[in-house]
């Protein structure tokens, strides 16, 4: 069952169009990857879904046309966006960051349980649960950002450049946690990544963007089989 569908989606910054008609589908339990080099439009695609940039074309989520919806409305429909740069609320404590993630929920007891769940998933966070989020390291902030998204009990998580600025081992830890999340929770995901190796450890199928348009698409195996992919992104 298709959960998210993009049809001919365009997006602009000011008068410059940076996405020229992107289309793809994400099923209910899928993990979908968006790959490509810097500036290809990967982050912009996620922003278009969340309504953070002026968008053209059509974006459908669970049957509803959400094109141009405000970010908080998109979130209310069940899409959790972990932005590039993590969007950590630095002045708030780790616990408060998690509570913000659960803002739209009303089941207080379940929220408390979910906080424990996140702290189990990321033990580093448990150690720092009372500190201000700005005191956390890059990797910890990434884990916090992902936890914040989980707290919303979303149907779809948009993950933007989770490995950015992280040491390779930290990035691998983060992706290991994402994998665990996938297998335990079964949440659908759209993963934007420059590092194709990390992305492929989690996603089933993906597209590759190049200057705002799709240059390649296919399942994980199909893409891994292509020479260009191997050469360009896997140091093939």
């Amino acid at each position, binding site marked *: 069952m298709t959960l998210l569908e993009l049809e001919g989606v*365009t997006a*602009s*910054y*000011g008068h410059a169009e*940076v996405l020229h008609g992107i289309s793809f589908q994400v099923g209910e339990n899928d993990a979908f990857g968006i790959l490509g080099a*810097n*500036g*290809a*439009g*990967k*982050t*912009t695609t996620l*922003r278009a879904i969340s*309504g*953070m*940039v*002026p*968008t*053209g074309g059509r974006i459908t989520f669970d049957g509803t046309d959400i*094109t*141009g*919806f*405000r*970010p908080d409305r998109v979130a209310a429909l069940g899409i959790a966006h972990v932005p*590039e740069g993590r969007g950590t609320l630095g002045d708030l404590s780790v616990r408060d960051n998690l509570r913000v993630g659960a803002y739209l929920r009303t089941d207080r007891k379940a929220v408390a349980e979910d906080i424990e769940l996140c702290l189990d998933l990321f033990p580093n966070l448990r150690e720092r649960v009372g500190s201000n989020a700005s005191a956390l390291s890059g990797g910890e902030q990434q884990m916090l950002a992902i936890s914040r998204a989980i707290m919303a009990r979303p149907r779809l998580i948009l993950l933007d450049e989770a490995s950015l600025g992280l040491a390779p081992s930290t990035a691998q830890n983060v992706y290991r946690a994402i994998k665990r999340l996938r297998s335990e929770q079964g949440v659908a995901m759209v993963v934007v990544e420059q590092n194709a190796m990390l992305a492929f450890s989690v996603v089933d199928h993906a597209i590759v963007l190049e200057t705002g348009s799709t240059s390649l698409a296919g399942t994980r195996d199909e893409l891994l089989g292509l020479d260009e992919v191997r050469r360009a992104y896997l140091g093939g």
Partner: protein
Amino acid sequence: MSTLTKLSANLWVRIAFGVVVAAVLIVAPLISSKFVNYQLGLIAVFAVAILGLNIVMGYAGQVSLGQSAFLGLGAYIAAYFVTADLPIPDELRLPISLLLCAIIPAAVGLVVALAAARLRGLALAMVTIALPIIGIPLAKRFREFTGGAQGTTVSWLRAPDWTEGILENDQWRYYVVVVIALLMFLLARNLVRGRMGRAFRIVKENEAVAVAMGISPYRYKVMAFTIASMFGGVAGFMYLGIVQYTSPETLSFHTSINMVAAMVIGGSASILGTIFGAIYFVLVPSLANEVNPSLTALFSGAILLAVLFLVPGGVVSLPRRIAQVTRRLARRRGAPAPQYPSDQAPAPATTRPESTEKNEERGKVNDELP
């Protein structure tokens, strides 16, 4: 609009324009009433004061809410030196007073700036507010110098004997004041167009960039503020010349605020805009008062807000703004508009008043690129 720019670029047109303006300035007082000359003189006074404000606020980007304190200080210095019982020959009294009205306020401004320029923007504004607030009771206190709360009336700047029969007092005062104003404007123009002006602009734009270019923001802020204070002091001299009276009220912080408003409305960071601002400052309150006194403040506030929203560059940018809006309307009628997320949270990284134009397109764009 392009014909206008083509015209203004032509050297002969500019010379002709200058001649016309000069002729008007010279002839005006001879054919106008005392009251009109008074108003024109006041416009010159506040043009110089607002010019100083523009240099520190418009060009160098430092909020100053204390310009009235320097105006008042200049007026008091002039009042004191013109009448004081000092062993100075009469012919020299005037030029010495003018010089002191430039130097002493500049020195005060320098001291204040040295202390305050290191502070973050708004703390600096606070220090400048403190100037009128502290200045007024000080003026009331030092009665021997200032005449206390009642102020001092000084009858001076009379038309000299050699103009007997040709010029009246008010006309002479007008000429003196206008000549001083022209000199100050010339000074300002050279400052702003030269290296200092460019340095100010960079400091206003982005201090980190300034530092990277070897320009010390602190030094230039201090310089800008000192210059502004000097202009304020000179304007004070001119003020006493036209009004023949000064009191603690001259330092009022409302005057400072109204000058800032006038500067913005006329056009900040613009020499021509300063003149529009001065015209606004002098004429509008008196016009509004004639209509309905209690409407004056309402009117002024509404106009200032309207300018900030619709014509952020001030009156002086009106032609450019009209052209901009006409262009955009024409474009809208052509291309199909993309879907904008309505009513979004405000985005970061908008640095100009011009950004309100962008924000008018219903949707705020995040300027960070992937």
